[in-house]
């Protein structure tokens, strides 16, 4: 196994570093160490919504074995989990609960939107009770397309997440500086959820081909 460079961004030539390592000394940054530990022990929430959850379970079983990446500790309670894998269709009836569960998770926390449904509503997009993407209410770190994504893809999305974790800066990252992020829980109304999306998290994309109204009328 090749040892990875444990002291990135540190002005240290290779021979000194190897010598130091031989003596049992590692020169590194706190950021690096912290993120390395964090990324190697992401605890996902046992949270299945629909069909995709089965593939999520499959990725944890012996054939695919998510524990190779340090994430085998599935936690049923949000208070002990770092990662929420939104695996499946989020319906409007379920959306408030999803946001509430996300609010209960301690920082730092991440979200993987697994499957077409969690990303955009997927095959059920045109349904009256289907939320068209969980990113309307909570921030998503990794989008994992597929219907359902294969277990290998689940593992890859975890790798992407670990890559993202490695770039976190403890001093400036809002996850560490701002305290626990909490978002508004939508409420049921007669037709739809209120608000239909959280403007702090998500804005509808604008069509570059359509001119704004004033321009068009002028």
């Amino acid at each position, binding site marked *: 196994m090749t040892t990875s460079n444990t002291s990135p961004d540190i002005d240290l030539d290779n021979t000194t570093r190897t010598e130091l390592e031989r003596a049992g000394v590692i020169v590194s940054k706190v950021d690096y160490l912290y993120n390395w530990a964090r990324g190697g022990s992401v605890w996902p929430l046992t949270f299945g*919504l*629909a069909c995709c959850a089965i*593939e999520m379970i499959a990725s944890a079983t012996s*054939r695919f074995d998510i524990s190779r990446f340090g994430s085998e500790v599935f936690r*049923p309670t949000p208070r002990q989990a770092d990662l929420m894998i939104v695996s499946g269709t989020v*319906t409007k009836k379920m959306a408030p609960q999803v946001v509430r*569960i996300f609010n209960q998770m301690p920082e730092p926390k991440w979200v993987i939107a697994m499957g077409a449904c969690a990303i955009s509503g997927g095959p059920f997009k045109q349904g*009256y009770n289907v939320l068209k993407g969980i990113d309307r209410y909570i921030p998503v770190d990794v989008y994992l397309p597929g219907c*359902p994504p294969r277990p290998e893809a689940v593992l890859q999305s975890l790798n992407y997440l670990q890559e993202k974790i490695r770039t976190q800066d403890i001093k400036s990252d809002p996850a560490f500086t701002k305290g626990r992020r909490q978002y508004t829980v939508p409420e049921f109304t007669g037709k739809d959820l209120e608000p239909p999306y959280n403007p702090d998290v998500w804005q509808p994309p604008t069509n570059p081909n359509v001119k704004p109204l004033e321009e068009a009328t002028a």
Partner: protein
Amino acid sequence: MSSPTATAPNYELIQQDGLETSLLEVSMGPHHPSTHGVFRMDVKLDGETVVDLQPVFGYLHRNHEKLAENMSYLASMPFTDRLDYFNSMTNNWAYALAAEKLVEIEVPERAEYLRVIMAELTRLVNHISLVGFFINDLGALGTPLLYAFREREKIMDLFEQASGARMMCNYFRFGGLRNDVPEGWLDRTREVVDRFPDFLDEYEKLLCENEIILSRTQGVGCLSRDLAISAGITGPMLRASGVNYDIRKVDQYGIYNRFKFRVPYTDDDVGDCYDRFMIRMLEMRESIEILKQALRDIPGGDIIGKAPKIFKPKPAEAYARVEGPKGELGFYLIADGTPKPYRYRVRPPSLINLTVLRDMCLSQKIADAVVILGSIDIVLGEVDR
């Protein structure tokens, strides 16, 4: 908020030495690891005893029926996969049967055999996963589930080779199947089927006489024969209550009349969780018998019959049902002469089997309520659709 026939035992709050006790209300779910998805039970507890229980549905209501009424007949086929996502093949079959009732299409021999093979493999997948989850609900976290999923993966591979997808196979078409199985697939299937009983032996040795399983499941969640029939319970759960009713035998859809197999059912009038668990274990053995016969007799030839290019049935109604691994899965279609169904309805076995959940759970312990729910075998995609 009371349910019809079962009434909660007349409850008087205990008052003792000036201490007042009251009932504890717990909302289990929709995010709860033992509810198999997003199902919720509002439970009222006295200590640990359940005195009232209300199931709450709808957290996975994906508007399948409404969507299907706005698209062509064939376009609904992939959506049926997502109903009961363990058993996409049997769902496909039920829907194809209903559509074939609307428009007479002859299904070629080879397709009929492959349909049976796929359906029985699906039954194996469903039952092993269910047993794994069920033992998981009993508190054996992980190990049996890992064993079960190990076997499941073998069958998933077969599905993938045949249809291109692991779970959402979308393999059936009106009048046959989408494509033939690849070369060597039948041999690989034979191999898997031949080795499956070894796994079952191992599993049975591990579980069936396990002291803890016996004491946690026997006498828990009793369901009487009369209530089961009246409540429309179907599938292994009905047979565990002593009714010999298997749609494969009763309707003999497809070519089930050609195979020799037995229908396991209990011979007394009440079924408990252990019966339901055992019926599934026995059913797997029978599925293997069917599979062996089908794999032996399968002929060559076409795999899709002459279906009209544009599927546009004349105004008519059709109801077709199959014996899915969870019970009677039915599709009710009303055609009005357009390429879209006027009414499209799924008869979900999981939802109707839940009718008796309250009756079975009353005056049991809360931990047993979890076991009882596990033994019903629900999949939320089908309960809420």
